[in-house]
């Protein structure tokens, strides 16, 4: 029986995109900080906060864009699950990335 295409993965991506941005930001930030504080890759002055800051601002901008695009779903009581969940997760990712970015302003060096 032929059934219409449901675009399962496209819908899944629509909902989880903000979380994927958070994963990418967290993995890159943690990975770079760890790499630049190991004996093999030790960077004088500690992790590159400029690069980390740039990545954080980019991730924040992406999540803000996703939240802005999903703002209608937050107001619309009839919005579908994918739209509403995507918008909620965009705000959540925005908060989580902003919070993770704060140490960049406060912490320098490896120790």
């Amino acid at each position: 029986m032929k059934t219409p295409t449901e675009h399962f993965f496209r819908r899944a991506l629509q909902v989880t995109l903000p979380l994927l941005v958070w994963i990418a930001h967290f993995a890159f930030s943690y990975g770079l900080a760890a790499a630049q504080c190991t004996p093999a890759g030790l960077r004088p002055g500690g992790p590159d906060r400029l690069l980390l800051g740039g990545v954080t601002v980019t991730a924040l901008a992406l999540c803000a864009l996703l939240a802005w695009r999903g703002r209608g779903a937050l107001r619309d009581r009839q919005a579908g699950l994918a739209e509403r969940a995507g918008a909620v997760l965009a705000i959540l990712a925005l908060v989580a990335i902003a919070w993770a970015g704060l140490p960049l302003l406060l912490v320098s060096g490896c120790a």
Partner: protein
Amino acid sequence: MRTTPNTAPRPDGELEKLEEVWRTRRGWRFFSSVNNTNIGLLYIGTALLFFVLAGVLGLLIRAQLAVPQNTLLGAETYNQVFTMHGTVMMFLFAIPVVEAIAVYLLPNMLGARDLPFPRLSAYAYWAYAFGGLAFFCTLFAGLAPDGGWFMYPPLTGTKYSPGLNADFWLLGIGFIEISAIAGAIELIVGILFTRAPGMTLGRMPVYAWAMLVVALMIVFAFPAVIAGTALLELERAFDWPFFIAERGGDPLLWQHLFWFFGHPEVYIIFLPAAGMVSTMIPTIAGTPLVGRRAIIAALLGVGVLSFGLWAHHMFTAGLGVLEMSFVSAASMAVAVPTAIQVFAWIATLWKGKVQRGAPTLFLLGFMFIFVLGGLTGVMVAVIPFDWQVHDTYFIVAHFHYVLIGGMVFPVFAALYYWLPLVNGNRLSEVLARWVFWLMFGGFNLAFFPMHISGLLGMPRRVYTYGPELGWNGLNMVSTVGAFLFAAGVGLFAVDAFRTLRREARPVGNPWNAPTLEWLGSEDYGNRSIARVSSHDPLWDEPELAREVEEGRHYLPHSATGERETIATSPVAAAPRYLLVLPGDSWLPMLAAFGTAAFFLLLTVKLYPLAWACGLLAVGGVLGWMWGSDRESAHETVRAEASQPLPVGATGTASHSWWATIIMLVVDASIFASFAFAYVHVSMRLMVCPPPGASLPPLTQALASCGLLLSGSALVWLARRSLGKRRLPWLALAALGCALASFVLDLQGWRAGLDPSASAWAAAIAALAGYQGLHIVLLLVLAPYLALRAWRGHLGPRSRATLDNIALVWHYTTLQGIAAVAVVRLMPLVME
């Protein structure tokens, strides 16, 4: 009258035939049952048995600590007792019980007749039951693990733990990991592909959402601990120094791998409980769940954010301050989606008219305790505070508030709520109040003082303490509380035993719940599979229960004369095909016995017997697979009056194809963990490769990759040769290529690498060994495929074996190439 999928009166004898197909065998044959209801009940019962056994160990701990300088338990026994308490609670109770409840509840809640792989569920259960009981019995021989439930090296290396105790932990939990992953695959495929027609993702019960998220978390979290335990066991067995600093290893590598599993694990335990709470609260409040879509988003958010918290268990391990700050931030961020759920539950209770009863009491108890545990969780996410309380009783108090509050209380609420499904009888409301207040009061009395004893400096895991330290009174109060809590559990056990022995009554819908598990149900599930049009179907469609019972919805019969359910599309839940399910069999139990015995006998170094049991396990699995994937006599059947439904599906439409993909994701995650270990130990080197080690020539590695690619090309050709005589020969030729590739690899590695000389070489050996394991798998699969082809069991409608083996084959090729790339790139990056 509403239009239903089947409107004609049902023919005589139809129901009797359905009952016959699904009938549970009586007497000792009951244990060959694979039906989700029977396996689910056995699973829940066994998990609760382990809860009691681990609880007894907890009482022993409290008895020992009741007074200073107590001599009830010696230091060595105490070490085994607290290690087993934590290990059994986490691995043999907490994870299994949430999967067990899902195995029991989900098919009915989703409107399916059973889960898509009933024999896999049975295998997962029996592996857990056999292995778990044998593992627990190590206590009686003084061979139980004694390194704490997270088994940190170097304490658990051979230098400081020379006995078998640590090996029992490392190999003993192997079968639990296999069981949990098998359960996760079953749940993901079941939730996505066997929902009742019309039950879109938006209408799916929140509990099913929670279990979907949890099953996906298991897929990504468990591989880390599988890899970690494999590495530590390899170190102990063959002196491969992954965690020995003098030879380039790093004890922190274990901590990273363990906690990358261990922290999501907390949410793997909590989210199913949260899903149950989100299912029970609307019923007891008599109103739809407030913020349903936000709760689903929160479940997804918690599931993902929880993977960024692992290192908050390592704040005192010497990580860089910036890395710790990222993890601290994630630890605080995860409180946001958790709070969304708590506020939504409070709002639902506020909005509705709350039924007073046992589930309500336990749900309120859950919220009180869990919120307190969450708040101390935020406290320990603050790095300087964690430095003060790390490894003290404050942490013991915190995680018991989170785990008992966040999981045990909801599970007890669930037992009160769903137990009537078993035989129609409810537990006693009078006794329930006693049970609740004993458990709630006892819990707070036991664990609240531990916050204070921790702040006063009492460390975890001490088997006794001096009377002058000021902890005496607090410890005595904790002990009294623990025994009160145990009395509550004991009273519950008596009541449950009494209730389950009572004569069965019609189940009905005692709480006036909105979800499908309260439809009339027998061994075959519901009389017909409901068509769903809302997320609270029993509230919004009052006639639904009667229509389903009259056989007016989908599949009111056994269309092929076998066990069946309807496979639906993942988003809209449109009927796609009839999924024919396997019947009862002893083979899953036999295979499970072989698996558990293999791991345990390996631990006690009875190698020939262990390998014999391993072969029994493989034989059992192949035996049950041999009977599956056969062409049905029917091409289509009528599950509803209006249109025919195909029997079975192939390729990406097949549920088995998806299960294979998920298994390969697990596989890739284990490989990634080994690759991480290699990168981690490489980054500790000043010169890479380290002195005395060298990689084989690049041409040799390229030749190996070429052979793997040739094997894959032959398998690709085999897939296009269905029905032709060359197919089995192509599979065997592909096997030749894979074997040649591995022999070439082995020669190369052995020339320049000594795995016991450095952690770097050992990490490469681990990657090579993992690839070798896949070649052994192909060594089994290729002849199996050839045999099926020769016996005529491969055809256009029975090609799942071919398609799935092809997937495994191509994955092995990719993994081999990825291993070569990772190993070769790292020294280049470090130059």
